[in-house]
């Protein structure tokens, strides 16, 4: 099964700046999901975008999906120190378990 590849692997920004993370994949998907993991904790689901959707918003989060380029981006606007975490994309390609990428480690410096 395919795995999403996040880019960059690590990102460091100042508080108040926007953070953008990308996820690329190789074959068709039903939906793509983004999760967040604080250090030493379990993952928390952030947002799900279906293959027929192009953009979704949730609070300060904005997710886009370009199925022609097989890529998605997660934008966090007006970042806060509390946004410091690892962010993972996960692919749903059918009636099989989600496949998680290796994640992007975001550091927001106050």
């Amino acid at each position: 099964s395919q795995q999403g590849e996040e880019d960059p692997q690590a990102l460091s920004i100042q508080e108040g700046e926007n953070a953008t993370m990308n996820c690329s994949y190789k074959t068709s998907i039903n939906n793509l999901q983004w999760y967040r993991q604080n250090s030493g904790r379990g993952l928390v689901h952030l947002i799900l975008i279906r293959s027929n959707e192009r953009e979704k918003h949730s609070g300060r989060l904005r997710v886009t999906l370009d199925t022609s380029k097989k890529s998605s981006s997660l934008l966090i606007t007006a970042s806060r120190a509390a946004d410091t975490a690892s962010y993972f994309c996960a692919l749903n390609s059918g009636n099989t378990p989600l496949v998680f990428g290796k994640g992007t480690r975001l550091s927001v410096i106050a």
Partner: protein
Amino acid sequence: SQTIHQWPATLVQPVGSPLSLECTVEGTSNPNLYWYRQAAGRGLQLLFYSVGIGQISSEVPQNLSASRPQDRQFILSSKKLLLSDSGFYLCAWSRNQETQYFGPGTRLLVL
């Protein structure tokens, strides 16, 4: 509301010892259940998943095994731990193959 529990939170075990990690879900019935392992600073590796009692699918052949003795209970076991079994073990559940909800994890150190 649904909750997922894992225990223990932390475990230090000698090489060659057995392992039993438990995961239970409350507030839902017939969930899909998953065991993942995460090495330090790395992504998630799916180990096992189950769509029903007694049904276990193994993604990675190794010295670990899983069992689902009850609808909302998922157990990860080993007869003899290896150094390479060290890591962060996460249990998750889902209603279907979509959104997954994760437990707090168990940190295992094999010495």
